[in-house]
């Protein structure tokens, strides 16, 4: 299975009631790649990200993580839902950073980061705390270890959330509009951390409205609208060279003259 891409979405379909929010979305991610999803709100970018992490069930197609079918298994010639334990195991390969941070409010920054390594991987508490401390320093919050999330700014909370996801050493980090809930002056601190991760070879899939950031860090930019992938390319191809009408209209609407 060495030839398989790290992650493969194959004709993924997702419906909410009668609305189809993902219409046959296919995408492959290779190890070390940084892929940025852009598009107008309601395009299905966040939903797509959530299906990858199995936070949403899919209604068609399939997702493969490291060549392994996600969320289902084959019984003879039909597919059945995977046991919850197996789903949990698969989820560990992907880390997720949410728009609203979703830090655990009853734990300190350090506890937020060390909790899953201790309780999921069985890492010794002392080791987990040491790792958590290193991660906090890496995101520039070494002196905030004992602060509760309510005592941190949004930008600090999001950096703790990134450290929390990193602590599980996921193959892929998913970012769901990580800076959309932040005050403008706090955005750069978070983007800086993400930029560093990209240079360290971390595989990332990022949904964002920060176009400048997308141009800088993306290996590939994916343009989605109305539940479909319309254009995939290098940042230059997407931001400068595209002839796709919808893409040009979208870029115009966010202030990039294409």
């Amino acid at each position, binding site marked *: 299975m060495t030839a398989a891409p790290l992650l493969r979405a194959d004709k993924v379909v997702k419906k909410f009631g009668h609305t189809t929010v993902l219409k046959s979305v296919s995408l492959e991610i290779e190890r070390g790649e940084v892929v940025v999803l852009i598009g107008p709100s309601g395009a299905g970018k966040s939903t797509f990200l959530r299906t990858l992490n199995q936070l949403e069930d899919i209604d068609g197609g399939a997702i493969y993580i490291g060549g392994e079918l996600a969320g289902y298994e084959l019984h003879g010639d039909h597919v059945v839902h995977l046991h919850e334990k197996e789903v949990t195991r698969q989820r560990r390969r*992907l880390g997720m950073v949410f728009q609203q941070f979703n830090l655990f409010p009853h734990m300190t920054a350090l506890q937020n980061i060390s909790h*899953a390594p201790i309780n999921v991987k069985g890492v010794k508490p002392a080791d987990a705390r040491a790792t958590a401390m290193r991660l906090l320093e890496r995101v520039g919050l070494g002196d905030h270890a004992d*602060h*509760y999330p*309510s005592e941190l700014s949004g930008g600090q909370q999001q950096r703790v959330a990134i450290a929390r996801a990193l602590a599980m050493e996921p193959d892929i980090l998913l970012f769901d509009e990580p800076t959309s809930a932040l*005050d403008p002056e706090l955005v750069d601190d978070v983007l800086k951390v993400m930029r560093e991760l990209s240079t360290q070879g971390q595989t990332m899939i990022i949904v964002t409205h920060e176009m400048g950031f997308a141009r800088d860090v993306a290996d590939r930019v994916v343009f989605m609208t109305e539940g479909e992938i319309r254009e995939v390319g290098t940042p230059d191809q997407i931001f400068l060279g595209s002839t796709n009408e919808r893409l040009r209209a979208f870029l115009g609407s966010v202030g990039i003259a294409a």
Partner: protein
Amino acid sequence: MTMTQATIDVAGARRRQRPGQWIATVVVLIFAALLVWTFATNPTVEWPVIGKYLIFPAILQGLWTTIWLTVASMVAGIAGGIVLATARMSNSRLVKAAADVYVWFFRGTPTLVQLIFWYNIAIFLPQVDIGIPGQTPWISMSTNALINPLMAAFLGLALNEAAYMCEVVRGGLLSVPPGQAEAAQSLGLSARKTFLQVILPQAMRAIVPPTGNQVIMMLKGTSLVSVMAVTDLFYSAQGIYVTNGKVIPLLIVASIWYLIITSLLYVLQSRTEKRFGRGLVRRKVGRAAKPIGAIALQPTPDFEGTTK
């Protein structure tokens, strides 16, 4: 109108007089005085009798029964409430419906009726058999041997309590934002650990205050078991005043004990609330703790170093 602007400083401002407040104060004081006067001069109150019976062995024994019946029923009720709450939030329609029916039934019938039913359970089921229906049972017991009045009291109170606690727990669980479970899941925590380590500790903040209410209601509710001749605090007091006629002093004795315990429970509740408010209520920094609502997303430069 123009005014010559002398420099005004409101620092020394006085409170505005409000006539309504004065009237209310006078009314309250009059009532308080009347109340004290009534108790002080009423010949039926008999303070020495109250003093004697407050620590009378039968009363203390009754008090003990009341306390442990409250604790046992409450612990069982909370455990049952958690099970029912998770059942009510289950994806299985049958499980959900079963929990719904349970809550509907036990909330919809009077506690007193339920207690008397359990007291008389032997009429309904004279014998408890364990085994396969239609075959000779493996174990067979007379219901009266299994369920004495005290057991009936516990069963009645606990089963009833579980229905109320179900709603309290469910409300608490629903107060935790769904993003918390998603974050826990995406970190690879199992459903059980997500519930126990992430959801429940946060839900506790919303669960503790109404549970405190439930404990106090339970404490007083145990007095209902006096109809089943269970010698709780109230039944013991009754037993004494029936023979010596000191009705009012013994009712006061019982009330004093109920008040003492509810006061202790109140202290316990505020401590528990503080425990589960960890991280959700801002820690003290010289001044009083503030709720986080207003400061949630504010940077806290004033915070650094002050907690060290």
